């Protein structure tokens, strides 16, 4: 039977032998992975990406470039091997297929092939050190556990996932508009967060200090349970970046979605958290008093959270309030709930290893697929293809003539296509231009110095 027939008639059809043979029980193990790496993992695309145009024929291409990139593999039984490097796509592909890593991490490009690092160790002019590395970000929803009530820990649902969506919007806009980066890849981390890879040449060549500066530019949240006020937005006016994030993304999301969906003001335990953020105790008591009274009174049709939020805003932002701090408090509350919380350490160091896109997450079986930042509202982590689902789709597809079609026949095909058209191709085009441009500039320079 054809794939179309199988899918449309699936519910009604009697389960015959063929159908049962296609079914793949949920799970994650070396056997599944072997097939995944054999037929679906986009080895060639990863190679092209990591080569940044140096796999071409142009004389200025650096043939050693790809070989100086560190990969690390986590094998079955938690065996972890670092400093893996490959000189060609074939070596990469064969190693992955042979070792079947449960996780693949990508590290920096070093000054020399990591395999030869011991020959260089300390001192002298030839040191073993990172020379290029994408600017990366890691956002994990567990860092928001103090502001989401629907899930905790590793769980994620459609109520709290939008926190990731708005994080993407805020950071992506800033990376493009403020920092001028263009080649940005957002990836689902497979369970509870997102990763961001900024691949412009300029980004790859940033020093640790510059990376730390960018991470600090993005940092607003500074607290933990020992301090009460976790966000502090001093100054009469917000920096344009914060102001834009607030008006374009955070305010709307907080008021329309987060506040009602997470019931942030509906009961005392929850509204206390917000009242705690108000620096003026008398204002906080005033609101507390009103809300305690209203607890049993019948409310209007409007959501209680929205009603109380309006009350809070009008008290804090009324003309009566003299101190700057109180007016700013509304923004601080919104920021403390919604503003992106990045893992600073991931972004600051060139030698940090980060999971490769298109890996499969061992605990969920989901593939780490790219996310389109322009359409991130549509992304649903609960429908991301899983390993067993993909294998089932392969089974149903039957024998195909070539690898390309096999991939296309599965739900992963769409993700790989997106990866290619909206990220890889524009990136490689720009790399090629950069290589040619710097080559021509060098030629020109040497011509100039030779002229008498």
């Amino acid at each position, binding site marked *: 039977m054809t794939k179309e027939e199988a899918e449309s008639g699936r519910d009604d059809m009697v389960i015959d032998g063929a159908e049962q043979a296609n079914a793949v029980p949920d799970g994650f193990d070396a056997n599944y992975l072997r097939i995944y790496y054999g037929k679906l993992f986009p080895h060639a695309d990863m190679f092209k990406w990591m080569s940044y145009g140096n796999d071409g024929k142009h004389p200025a291409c650096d043939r050693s470039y790809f070989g100086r990139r560190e990969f690390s593999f986590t094998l079955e039984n938690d065996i972890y091997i670092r400093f893996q490097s490959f000189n060609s796509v074939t070596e990469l592909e064969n190693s992955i297929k042979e070792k079947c890593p449960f996780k693949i991490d990508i590290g920096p490009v070093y000054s020399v092939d990591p395999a030869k690092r011991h020959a260089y160790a300390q001192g002298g002019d030839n040191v073993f050190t990172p020379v290029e590395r994408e600017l990366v970000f890691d956002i994990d929803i567990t860092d928001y556990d103090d502001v989401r009530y629907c899930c905790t820990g590793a769980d994620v649902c459609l109520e709290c996932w939008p926190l990731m969506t708005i994080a993407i919007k805020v950071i992506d806009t800033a990376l493009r508009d403020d920092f001028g980066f263009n080649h940005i890849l957002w990836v689902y981390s497979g369970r509870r967060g997102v990763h961001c890879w900024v691949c412009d040449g300029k980004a790859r060549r940033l020093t640790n200090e510059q990376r730390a500066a960018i991470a600090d*530019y993005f940092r607003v949240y500074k*607290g933990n349970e020992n301090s009460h006020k976790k966000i502090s937005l001093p100054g009469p006016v917000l*920096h344009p970046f914060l102001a834009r994030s607030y008006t374009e993304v955070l305010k709307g999301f907080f008021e329309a979605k987060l506040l009602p969906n997470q019931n942030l003001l509906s009961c005392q335990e929850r509204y206390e958290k917000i009242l705690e953020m108000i620096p003026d105790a008398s204002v906080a008591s005033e609101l507390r008093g009103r809300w305690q009274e209203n607890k049993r009174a019948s409310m209007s049709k409007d959501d209680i959270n929205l009603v109380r939020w309006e009350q809070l805003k009008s008290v804090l932002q009324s003309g009566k309030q003299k101190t700057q701090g109180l007016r700013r408090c509304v923004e601080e509350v919104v920021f403390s709930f919604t503003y992106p919380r990045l893992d600073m350490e991931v972004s600051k160091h060139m030698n940090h290893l980060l999971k490769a896109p298109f890996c499969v997450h061992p605990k969920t079986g989901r593939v780490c697929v790219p996310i389109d930042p322009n359409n991130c509202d549509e992304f649903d982590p609960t429908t991301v293809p899983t390993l067993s689902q993909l294998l089932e789709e392969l089974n149903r597809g039957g024998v195909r003539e070539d690898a390309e079609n096999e991939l296309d026949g599965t739900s992963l095909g769409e993700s790989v296509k997106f990866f290619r058209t909206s990220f890889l191709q524009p990136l490689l085009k720009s790399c090629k231009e950069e290589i040619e441009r710097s080559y021509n500039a060098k030629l020109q320079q040497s011509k100039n110095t030779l002229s008498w």
Partner: protein
Amino acid sequence: MEVVQSHRKSSSNNVIVSTLPLYRSAPPLEVRLEDFELFAMDRLRVLKGISDGLGRGKKPEEMEKLIAYLWKANMRHPHANEEANKDIISHFVLRLVYCRTEELRKWFLSMETTLFRYRFRFESSEAQRALMSEFKLPYKAVSNAEFESVKDKLGQVARSMGQTLAAADAIFYKVPFEEVPELVAGRRVFIHKGHAYVAMNQVVSLVVTQFRSYLSKALILTNRKWTSTVREQEKDRLAPIVEALCTSYLGPDYSQPNEVGEISLKDIYQIAKTSFPLCMRHLFEKVREDHHLKHGGRMQLGLFLKGVGLKLDDALAFWKAEFAPKVSAERFDKEYAYNIRHNYGREGKRTDYTPYSCQKIISSTPGVGDHHGCPYRHFSEENLRAALVRMGVSSRAVEDVMDKVRNRHYQLACTLTFEAVHGSSCDAGINHPNQYFIDSQRILQSKNGSVA
């Protein structure tokens, strides 16, 4: 070689030459051997004074006064020529002293950069512009037309810092954002498409970054040269002076727990109550309460315990036992033991890590779920008071401590706490948690004649 004569020339071509040297190359001067040491010691007094000032959390205006005073007291000379020579010679001698290890380099770099920053600010704006051009910074003055188009945003940034945009003749420079990491990190500039718009008064940051980067590279080269050739040649003449200068001023090195002797695991619980500074008490309490600590906390407390004299095996037993309710012995061995061994220099590149100083702890950034950092800085007033009361500090002393905290004198606050808890004065002030511990034990032992 660049000409390094830097004093005011009232020469015919009317060139204003700055009094601030850039230390680009070693001076072609002859130095008397006594001056070699004396000049360096005078400069070291200045640098040490700066280090103290920073450690006490002095504000910029206070640092300005302090540095002006330190320079005048130690580096002045009746002849301007001689003064300039002393400045340069002392700097280069100290390079020899402080190039030898990563920690020394970091300290020297930090102090010299701070010194340079304040001296730059003292210069006139023409002198500043002259210095900027010496650095060959890739900045462009913003045209009037462009200024008009971004004026609003520039004004917003200024107001967000509590300043106003200067009058219509405000000069702004446009630089690639990577050139001004400090300004980007603090959101003190408007950035657009990768360019930062830097106000004239922020130019200091540009220059300082260049100075720092140059000196950082120079120190590494100096170290190579010293270790490979100079030290041997100078082993009877300069080397002894250089070695002596280093140890005499940097204070005790807490990486070797020689002064303390060993502490056994069962003693730890007792001495935590009596001799740990608040930062470590808090971490210690939390790990016992939560049966877990995040990475930052494990590092800060773990290294402190190492400095206190806890041996590796006892350390492993301690963490394993405390984590036991949440982490199985197997998982502990897999996920945590390696890092503890790493801290003791038994893994990886075998660096024997030094326990963190107050300066480092104060400047750390604890986030969600973290308990490290300096409680005097990172706790809310309420939480800090409660913690101090639990330590047994009298209410009068608590007020004194809180007063110091409000003025951001975190180390002084800790010193007062020490004095209140032990009933004796601590003249040297607290600079390092292990110093607090040693001093505390010393007092308690002299009172009881045994380990308290």
